[in-house]
């Protein structure tokens, strides 16, 4: 009886992780569609991202309610909820980034497209690894730390990529207006921010794992 309900809850946690995991590829495809000027595809992907965000919110609230109502994992409840909240931020941030592309329509020189795509790739990798780490935190706490270190790796790579991209942008004579450069910077930082959030989650996760390891 108790185990049956626990299995249901485990399924919900897994669903939540699946949703977060989808944010990475969706963001990647979205940025690609934007550069390819594929308006239709981009809108479709933005819609998908909004749906992901809503579903993640719903499941998160559902898990939250269940943990409190059934007073499950009382001593780790705060940590688990903080973790879900932080993971949810990843989808939120990814969605915001895509929405900002659709609102601000930044003019990005073609020569920078590949660097932007690389940066998005690195952020998506960080998401991929943080979701693996989080799944492991739930299922096999000891393994979580292994993936946490990979998140740190991808986040550093993303920092390096964004740094080098921004250096190029600010030294580019083709971009006459500072406002243009700033606009570039805003988008580079927004994509890099997704990896930063993954890193924040990883920080939390490593502390929670230490706390959980008996």
């Amino acid at each position, binding site marked *: 009886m108790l185990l049956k309900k626990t299995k249901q809850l485990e399924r919900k946690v897994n669903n939540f992780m699946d949703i977060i995991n989808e944010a990475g590829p969706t963001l990647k495809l979205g940025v690609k569609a934007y550069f390819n000027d594929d308006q239709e595809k981009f809108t479709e992907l933005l819609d998908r991202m909004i749906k992901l965000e809503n579903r993640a919110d719903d499941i998160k609230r559902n898990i939250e309610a269940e943990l409190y109502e059934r007073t499950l994992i009382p001593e780790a409840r705060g940590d688990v909820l903080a973790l879900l909240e932080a993971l949810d931020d990843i989808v939120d941030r990814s969605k915001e980034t895509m929405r900002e592309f659709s609102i601000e329509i930044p003019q990005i020189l073609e020569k920078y497209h590949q660097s932007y795509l690389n940066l998005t790739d690195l952020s998506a990798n960080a998401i991929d690894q943080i979701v693996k780490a989080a799944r492991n935190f739930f*299922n096999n*706490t000891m393994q979580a730390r292994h993936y946490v270190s990979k998140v740190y790796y991808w986040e550093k790579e993303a920092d390096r990529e964004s740094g080098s991209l921004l250096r190029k942008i600010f030294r580019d004579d083709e971009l006459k207006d500072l406002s243009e450069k700033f606009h570039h910077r805003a988008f580079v930082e927004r994509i890099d921010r997704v990896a930063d959030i993954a890193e924040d989650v990883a920080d939390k996760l490593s502390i929670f794992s230490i706390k959980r390891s008996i």
Partner: protein
Amino acid sequence: MILIYLSSGLFLGWSLGANDASNIFGTAVGTRMVKFRTAAIVASIFVILGAVHSGSGAAHTLGQLGSINAMGGAFMVALAAGFTVFWMTRLKLPVSTSQAIVGAIVGWNFFAGMLTDYNSLLKIVFSWVISPILAGIFAVLIYLLLKRVLRLTPVSILRLDVYTRAGLIVVGAFGAYSLGANNIANVMGVFIPAAPFEAIQIAGINFSGTQQLFLLGSLAIAVGIFTYSHKVMQTVGNKVVKLNPQSALVVVLAEALVLFLFASADLHNWLISHNLPALPLVPVSSSQLVVGGVIGIGIVQGGKTIKYRIAGKIAAGWVITPIIAALIAFFALFFLKNVFEMKVSNPVSYRLSKPVVKRLRTHDIIIKEDDRNKKFKNAIKVKRFVNNSSYLSQTDLEEIVASARVDSFYFSSSRLKNFQNDHGELFSENELQRFNDLKGQRFSHEWQLRDQILEKVFQQKKAALKNEENNHKLELIKENFKVSHQTN
């Protein structure tokens, strides 16, 4: 009237339930892993089971330390222990009922002129010292084992939560059983020799007087659990010792195992029969076991060192608590006897009669011609007299006191008949027949009765009384044929 006498013991039981239940379910309830109601019900049921079924082992050791033979004395001894616990708790000093009751018993011994069995006392104090250390060692071993198991077979957080809850309840039940078995002696042990409960049979199961006494005591513990332990559990769970539920499970299991080791006569006999080291059956402090367990886990987790201040406080408790309790008991008994003129002890007299002198000679103890047939009012007087007249070892002295003690046993035909009816199933057909040879006989020393029973009924050599079953039978016979205390 009997309930008034027992009230101090029942109060001790109540405070044991209120305080010590938290050593078993404290973290579970404090961290909301187990509901208080569930914990209270499980703890109460198993405390009662443990007390009634396995409580006699530790009580026997306390009985050896001092056998309080008047209800008034037992009342005051339990009250003195209860008061010591209450007072020291108010002063925020670490205190355990086990240590208080031992002190109070020794206080009674002094007051009543009884000799304190230093062997038993040594055994008891040794147990206090070794028990937290043992709990620490057990906690480390169980912790490492659990860690290994969890590493080999990973369990999800949510499932681990379910298993831990179930584990906390199961281990809690075992802990409560062991607590009842080990600590009921603190609550009711002092009343055993004097309580006038007859054995009864319910649904074909025999309940001895002692078991009825333990049932009453454990009911008081259960009341303590239901009425007051919730508050204590919240404190233990949240403030004093912060443990995660898995570590709590380890600590409670270690604690329960140690309590059980010091309580179960069955385990004790099994260990001895397999040539394994067995621990004496002694009431120990569950609070100190928890501290031992927590320190053990702290060490194995690294980073934390032993808090010498806490260890020092515990060690001080081993000495200070019994001394305070003994002093309080002594003065309270004096007060009760002289102001209220209540009987706090039944004097036991000693006599170096002819058979005693003869028996002692077989142990190479020679009593001088002049000293023969001398009477003594109490054991301390025997000791003083014997010490003055010749130099003897402690063992010799104990032998003299044990041999000279005057008791009275009478095998009247009505008693014999009742005994054969009530306990016939314990004895073989032949043994029952041989009982009839004792009809009409009187014995004025316990050893005379024992020798006769061994020779006539069991048809065994004197030295053969190592058989637990026969020992139990002998205790029953003594209980049933004893004539009320002599006061000459």
